[in-house]
């Protein structure tokens, strides 16, 4: 690890490289990519929650102006393989277009391909589909009932996954504690809903026999999954990672979209573009997020020390399976949160319902679970008459206990939770805030303070895959970086992923610049495609600072080592007699004897006669493919595994007032103290934390994909699906703490998810603190104004204390 005191670029303020193109309108988003002769796709969707597709009459649509093709689900299913399922459910077969049976209202049934999007939409109205409605199930708890209508008939049940993990002596720990409490909690279905919808452009080149794909994508194994579904060799698919992604936060997966567009491009021998419109995105894009029913129980002693926890989660994955069930896996990596809980029982259940499918969402299932854990801690505090801060302090893992092994098998790398919480308390001015709350209450207001903490496991090794599906023996999730120095000394790094706002170019340049002593602004970073590039797994799991940062550092260090060899040789020294610093190799015994990296690069490229004899490879390039630190092992039989290497931590404190009449919540004085190890770029980290918190505020208070009992989605537009605007997100203040990770190149950890992991719990804590004088609680997210008002309506004002 580079010593902090000697760092020049890491942790320093630096304008992100990517921003320049975005502030000038010169980004390169998928809808900005055009190809000659391009065709456009629009979709026919099912109006029914569940229906047999009896027939589809495409004649009128095919005859409409500009129409090149109309493709039905049965036709596609006959020529393509089913999309991959996360868990082992061979009876579940999903295709881009419903084949035979439509499983949710809005599911795509047929695709129209036309010369313009408008013409495709015109023709879509002419497709006549005969449906035979089938019984449906919308409620996840009902779907558990074996008598419920099966969403996937061939699977035979709506239960896709069910396992109870027991880590440690849960029964004994519960029996041995004087107190227990339990509760139910509901996390409503919400999603990131990026402002850019998903889009893809596919072009089959018959000459090179390559399917080129430009997409708004953040998906590990993307090309592999497309190839598998289209029955092509993987090296016939070339996904381009130089496409800017207009926000993803996990959901930009787009497998079904790409399979469809790729199929059509190959069939029609013309480029085919499918840019979802907002309705297609929200209703049929299969990018909803977790939709959970929790049962939580904790056992604790008189002092509020929590000994054991039982967590039962039903995840309602909807009608398409995808990777949704895996979101029950990541919470295992921090199943005890920041606390020294001795044993845990975790029952994880995934059920199918007749709702839109899910994609991965920021935190991969952690945020809802964190609300459950933090709510339990608040309840323990209330039960014991202790402050919420004090209960947390008593239960926290202590700084001297790291690395700390949790019952489910992961070891937390580093942390100092007490100090971070103290920093949050100081930043919030908690004493004054408590006075303000109490004054507000005396004035008849409904006021509360939220306190919550969260772990942010980062650097994902995908151990959740074998954990939830033993047939999937994945034990690595590498990330790569190629660094080359051209003959003029210019440095170019190639990374194997697209970027969706996290600043990967800045990250790679900063770390390479740090390692080589070169101004990062002069380092170019480009994105490979899947044929030219090395392994990569996209910015999932708060992993890029850890994994791409580590790969970039590894490659840069190889360049540095190579420079030392060439430099020493030309300075007539041994490698031990020189040092590399600030872009030059210098003799230790004579500072005047120095050779620049540019000169060394020229030697490497052009002057083989000046190369050391043991360097037989001309040029100056280095590849580093990084294995996830501490990854590589399969889970044990009882489901213990090291899932993520690095554990960031944050504490959120927020003040909330609830309008008694309307239930409207106003947040203010939002403070976050966080520890993501070494910060690479302060402005990027700040944005990630605040933006994540804003996203979490939306999930806590406003956003829900709500369904009618009939199975119709009630919030399929931006009018009804309410993402917070600048008026709903308060100013958010940050304090930082740094416990460097011992596992990463510069001590960095992940930071992309923590804001979103902490905020829903903090807001829920504030609301329930505000409601506590009325002896009521709200354990349903989103905590809409109307819901809070309905809860308060029955309570006369006199019950306020």
């Amino acid at each position, binding site marked *: 690890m580079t010593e902090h005191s000697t760092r020049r670029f890491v942790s320093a303020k630096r304008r992100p490289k990517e921003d320049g193109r975005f502030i000038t309108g010169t980004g390169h988003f998928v809808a900005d990519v055009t190809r000659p002769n391009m065709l456009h796709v629009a979709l026919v969707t099912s109006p029914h929650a569940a229906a047999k597709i009896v027939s589809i009459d495409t004649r009128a649509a095919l005859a409409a102006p500009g129409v090149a093709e109309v493709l039905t689900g049965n036709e596609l299913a006959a020529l393509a393989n089913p999309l991959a399922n996360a868990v082992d459910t061979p009876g579940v077969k999903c295709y881009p277009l419903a084949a035979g049976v439509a499983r949710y209202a809005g599911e795509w049934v047929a695709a129209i391909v036309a010369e313009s999007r408008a013409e495709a939409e*015109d023709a879509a109205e002419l497709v006549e589909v005969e449906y035979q409605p089938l019984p449906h199930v919308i409620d996840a708890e009902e779907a558990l009932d074996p008598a419920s209508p099966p969403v996937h008939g061939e699977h035979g049940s709506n239960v896709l996954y069910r396992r109870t993990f027991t880590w440690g002596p849960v029964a004994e720990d519960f029996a041995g504690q004087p107190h227990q409490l339990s509760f139910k909690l509901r996390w409503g279905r919400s999603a990131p809903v990026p402002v850019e919808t998903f889009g893809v452009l596919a072009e089959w080149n018959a000459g090179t026999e390559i399917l080129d794909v430009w997409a708004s994508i953040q998906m590990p194994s993307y090309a592999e999954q497309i190839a598998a579904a289209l029955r092509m060799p993987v090296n016939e698919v070339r996904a381009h990672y130089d496409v800017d992604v207009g926000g993803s936060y996990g959901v930009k997966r787009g497998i079904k979209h790409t399979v469809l567009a790729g199929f059509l491009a190959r069939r029609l021998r013309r480029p085919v573009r499918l840019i979802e419109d907002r309705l297609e995105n929200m209703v049929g894009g299969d990018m909803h997020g977790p939709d959970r029913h929790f049962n939580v129980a904790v056992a604790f002693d008189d002092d509020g020390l929590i000994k054991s926890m039982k967590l039962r989660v039903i995840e309602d994955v909807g009608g398409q399976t995808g990777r949704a069930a895996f979101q029950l896996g990541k919470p295992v990596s921090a199943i005890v949160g920041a606390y020294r809980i001795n044993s845990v029982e975790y029952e994880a259940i995934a059920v199918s319902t007749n709702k839109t499918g899910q994609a991965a969402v920021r935190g991969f299932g952690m945020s809802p679970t964190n609300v459950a854990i933090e709510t339990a801690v608040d309840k323990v505090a209330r039960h014991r008459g202790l402050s919420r801060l004090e209960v947390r302090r008593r239960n926290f893992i202590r700084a001297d206990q790291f690395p700390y092994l949790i019952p489910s098998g992961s070891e937390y790398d580093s942390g100092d939770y007490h100090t971070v919480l103290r920093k949050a308390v100081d930043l919030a001015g908690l004493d004054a805030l408590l006075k303000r709350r109490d004054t507000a209450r005396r004035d008849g207001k409904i006021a509360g303070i939220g306190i919550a903490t969260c772990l942010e496991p980062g650097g994902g090794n995908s151990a959740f895959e074998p954990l939830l599906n033993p047939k999937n023996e994945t034990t690595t999730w590498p990330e790569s970086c190629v660094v080359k120095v051209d003959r003029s000394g210019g440095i170019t790094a190639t990374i194997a992923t697209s970027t969706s706002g996290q600043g990967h170019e800045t990250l790679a340049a900063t770390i390479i610049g740090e390692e080589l002593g070169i101004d990062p602004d002069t380092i170019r970073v480009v994105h490979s495609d899947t044929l030219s590039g090395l392994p990569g797994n996209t910015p999932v799991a708060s992993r890029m600072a850890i994994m791409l940062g580590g790969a970039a550092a590894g490659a840069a260090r190889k360049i540095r080592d190579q420079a030392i060899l060439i430099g020493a040789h030309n300075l007539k020294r041994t490698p031990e007699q020189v040092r590399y610093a600030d872009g030059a190799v210098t003799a230790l015994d004579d500072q005047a004897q120095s050779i620049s990296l540019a000169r060394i690069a020229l030697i490497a490229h052009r002057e083989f006669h000046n190369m050391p004899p043991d360097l037989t490879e001309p040029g100056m390039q280095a590849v580093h493919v990084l294995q996830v630190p501490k990854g590589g092992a399969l889970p044990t039989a009882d489901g213990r595994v090291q899932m993520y290497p690095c554990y960031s931590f944050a504490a959120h404190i927020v003040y909330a007032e609830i309008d008694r009449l*309307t239930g409207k919540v106003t947040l203010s004085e939002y403070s976050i103290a966080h520890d993501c190890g070494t910060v690479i770029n302060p402005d990027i980290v700040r944005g990630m934390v605040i933006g994540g918190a804003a996203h979490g505020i939306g999930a806590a208070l406003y956003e829900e994909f709500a369904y009618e009992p009939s199975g119709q989605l009630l919030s399929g537009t931006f009018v009804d699906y*309410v*993402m917070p605007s600048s008026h709903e997100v308060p100013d958010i203040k940050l304090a930082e703490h740094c416990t460097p990770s011992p596992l990463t190149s510069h001590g960095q950890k992940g930071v992309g998810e923590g804001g979103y992991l902490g905020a829903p719990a903090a807001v829920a804590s504030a609301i329930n603190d505000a409601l506590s004088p009325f002896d009521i609680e709200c354990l349903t997210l989103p905590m809409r*104004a109307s819901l809070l008002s309905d809860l308060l309506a029955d309570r006369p004002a006199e019950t306020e204390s």
Partner: protein
Amino acid sequence: MKAAAFEYCRAESLRQVLEELSGAGGEARIIAGGQSLAAMMAMRLARPERLIDINHVDALAGIEAVDSGITIKACTRQAAALQSTLIAREVPLLAAALPHVGHIQTRNRGTIGGSIAHGDPTAEILLAATALGARVTLASTAETRVLAISAFSLGAMETAARENECLTEVTFPKLPQGLSIGAAVDEISPRAGDYALIAAAAEIGLDAEGVCRHARLASSGAAPVPVLAAPVAEVLVGSPLNDAEIDDAARLLDPLLDPENDVHASAAYRRRVAPGMLARVIKAARDQARSRMT
């Protein structure tokens, strides 16, 4: 989300607008600001065969004082109305409503007449017009008629305008003389700038003793159209408007309500909040009126 194909006519005069409407057999729609219509067309919830653009008809823009009050021509931008000192002075309730209407971008295109003609039951302009008893003028090649807003506004997205009629202007009545006036509009919406779940508007006039001599009140969100809260106003006129009186009076709104459930709020919520919101704006208007008493 591309609109179905349509023909476009850029009208240069009101006569042309009316002739176009007259010849279209109900298949034409007027577009003013288009802030609702264009979105509905993109979703193909509206699919006119012909669109008559009135944005260039000079006679349909402007704000003027007339004998009976203030007339706002239909195609006057909401942003222009918000900046109008005439409206601020003479129709303070409308001025109080306008900041709640959409966002800066939509107010720059959206029009006063377009909002009323659209008939969205939670639109704030319609709410203010209901409270004040505004009158709308509807013109066709055959006749020009003036309707009270209560006769114009028939239901959610449903108005008395005929297929061949163009809403040309709305006239807000004069403020009463010799009273101290306060006006307030408030609402609860899912998100600032969104359509209101429940909104209320109150214009209050106090005499020199602080007694209420004028009350124009309306509530929206809990009935298919904005509700004129006449029974509430009737009780309050003559009262000094203390809080308890206002709270009691606002409950008289209840029989006028007919709320429905939707994704954002239950019918029970709407029924409960509407009177409270009305009381809130009455108090705010009262306080403003009191602060203006000499």
